């Protein structure tokens, strides 16, 4: 696992400070690669620019299902780097409006863009750890908000980055504390998801570390840190649907049995069940349940399959008062079968 620092020559003075914080607050085995944008030749700049864009995408927290498209025309710009940024993508921020030459003609626009970014202060310096950007220059979001007429970009933390003044040591140190915490929380989450496919009571730290691409020391640190999370990783919720077979076109009461074998009282949760939008109707979408330690509960849903076959359904565990998924409770996938009557 590496950290990557993208910078201009003037930013080199903060490298030593970053190395110290990485070792002390994230993991002592992490090495820092410095990418001086101006030090590269044309093809090197292309690689660096492409990598930067991928890292910015990589910072989007997967659980948020947020889409951001960031694009670059770096290949065509010779010795200068320009970036185009599009916020947000595909399903949000649509608007209708006239378009330059095609005045009178309208179509949906799903992004904002700016194509003449003179200077790179908006994007550099920046720090990436574990294949995603984590630190970007302070004020980036504010500047992005001021550009273009579309929906504003999501706040930095929602898109997985922290804005920081790299020349303010106290601010940088505080950011690293948060990065370390988030990284370890994420590792616990990933380990829980991994374990859901490899049901066993023991974790082979070397194998799982290799799988997750982190040093075993960091994984051990993450597991030691929070006993309740550890308990949930080893004693995962189990879901079963009864009946698992329904008759096509017949409304059937499906009972979802949820077992909490852990010693953690999970309190009140909202259970969301969803299936494919075509071929299967599930009602209601959500029910609330209490899930004490060592308990099993049932949640009832009505299911109608409109064609025979197997259907994938998903069970999500949400906080009772928010739409966010509860930590350490991975999405459960189940299959039900629909058979034609007779």
């Amino acid at each position, binding site marked *: 696992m590496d950290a990557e620092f993208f910078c201009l020559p003037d930013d080199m003075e903060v490298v030593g400070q970053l190395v110290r914080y990485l070792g002390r607050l994230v993991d002592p085995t992490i090495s820092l690669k410095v990418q001086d944008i101006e030090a590269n030749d044309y093809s090197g700049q292309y690689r660096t620019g492409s990598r930067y864009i991928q890292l910015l995408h990589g910072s989007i927290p997967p659980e948020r299902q947020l889409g951001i498209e960031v694009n670059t025309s770096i290949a*065509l710009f010779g010795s200068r780097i320009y970036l185009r940024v599009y916020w947000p993508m595909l399903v949000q921020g649509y608007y209708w409006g006239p378009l330059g030459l095609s005045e009178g003609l309208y179509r949906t626009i799903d992004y904002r863009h700016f194509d003449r970014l003179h200077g790179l202060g908006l994007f550099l310096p920046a720090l990436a750890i574990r294949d995603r950007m984590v630190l970007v220059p302070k004020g980036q979001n504010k500047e992005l908000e001021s550009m273009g007429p579309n929906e504003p970009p999501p706040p930095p933390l929602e898109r997985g980055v922290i804005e920081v003044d790299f020349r303010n040591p106290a601010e940088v140190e505080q950011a690293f504390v948060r990065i370390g915490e988030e990284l370890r929380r994420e590792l616990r989450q990933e380990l829980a998801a991994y374990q859901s*496919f490899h049901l066993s009571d023991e974790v082979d730290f070397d194998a799982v570390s290799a799988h997750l691409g982190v040093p075993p020391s960091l994984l051990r640190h993450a597991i030691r840190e929070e006993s309740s999370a550890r308990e949930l990783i080893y004693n995962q919720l189990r879901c079963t649907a009864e009946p698992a077979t329904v008759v096509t076109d017949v409304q059937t009461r499906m009972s979802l049995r949820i077992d909490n074998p852990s010693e953690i009282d999970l309190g009140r949760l909202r259970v969301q069940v969803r299936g494919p939008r075509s071929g299967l109707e599930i009602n209601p979408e959500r029910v609330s349940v209490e899930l004490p330690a060592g308990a099993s509960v049932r949640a009832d849903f009505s299911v109608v399959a409109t064609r025979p076959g197997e259907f994938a359904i998903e069970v999500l565990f949400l906080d009772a008062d928010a739409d966010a998924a509860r930590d350490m409770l991975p999405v459960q996938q189940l299959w039900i079968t629909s058979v034609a009557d007779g």
Partner: protein
Amino acid sequence: MSVSRVAFLSSEYPPHTYGGLGTVVEALSRFLGARGIEVVMLVPETGDYAAPPPGVSLCPVPVGLPVSDEDYWLTYCESAAATARRTGLRAGVVHYHDWMTALGGLAIGRALGVPVLMTIHLPQAAAYHLDLETIGITGCARVIVNSRAVRAELTEREVSQDKISVIPNGVDLARFRPGDQSPDPLEILFAGRLIPQKGPDVLVRAFGAVLRRHPEARLTIAGDGTQRLYLERLARFLGLRQQVRFLGWQSPGRLAELYRRCAVLAVPSLYEPFGLVALEAMASGRPVVVSRVGGLAEIVEDEVSGFAVEPGDHLDLATRLAALLSDPGLAGTMGLAARHRAERYDWRIIAGQTAGLYDSLASRPGPERAADLERLLLTAEAGLRERALALLVPEGRAGDQALAAGSCCERGQDNGR
């Protein structure tokens, strides 16, 4: 009148292909060449293109080091027109591809006094690109699009239906063919750029559900793009990283092998003008599960040669993918139907349709209206207007001066046809 030579203006030619455009241009020119139609391909000068096949010649266009994306393509267009003059280019038809080369194609067509066609591979949304695309559409005699879905998009933009010809992309049935060996019954393949438009994140989420039904299933992702690291992180987040293989960009030859080996190809695009990879996999005898969008919905017969699912619905996708993994017999039957369906898109047939269109335009000059072009140019951003006028208005011609002055005239009157 039969056209024997055509000038192509293309932003891509192998190995510099980024999306479908370069692949389509290479194949179309090759199959036109095989029909005896000489293709002169004006491409940006890079120095390392693949050797063209018989009947196709490359004419590199110097571009230099521009200051922006737009400047690059305007410079290309100016240089293409100059190159055509310098080399004494002759052609019965000029055919340009997408917005990047439109002004160059129009300029060369006007200089030669021959019909011009535009193929729109991917309709544009960004303002500047859309401006150039609109100029390209307005100035040409005919617009070729690869699906009825794209035609519908253009007609929403008030482009006349009469001006649009739907000619789908083709497939090379010799390269993409069923294999002798049985496919891997549990391998799902994705091939394409890793960008939001292609929906690879939808597929990774779907694969999580597929794994619960088929724990030995594997997902192979061939391609690269801005979402690659995000997708790797998503796979870890879902606990699937071991079962998802990221291969990066693959050559066409290697892709053909991957198609033959997989159980099913998933094409989860959120937007897709055509969907070339679906057609290639179908020609390879593999069933496909595609989003019900754009050209994909026209290529794939739902529940015959594959399944069509709701775009963005990962559980619908998972349901259909698992159905094919669960029933190799169904996968085999659909694979046969897919190959049969793909044969309709044989490049020899598609090149024949294109050649027929060239001939019809050559015998009946198109209704290009300089007045429309003039209106567009007069409202263009100043920098673009200046360079476009300089390109499209050769000095000393009465009709051109009228265009420059803002009065209306028919293009046919300009070139004396």
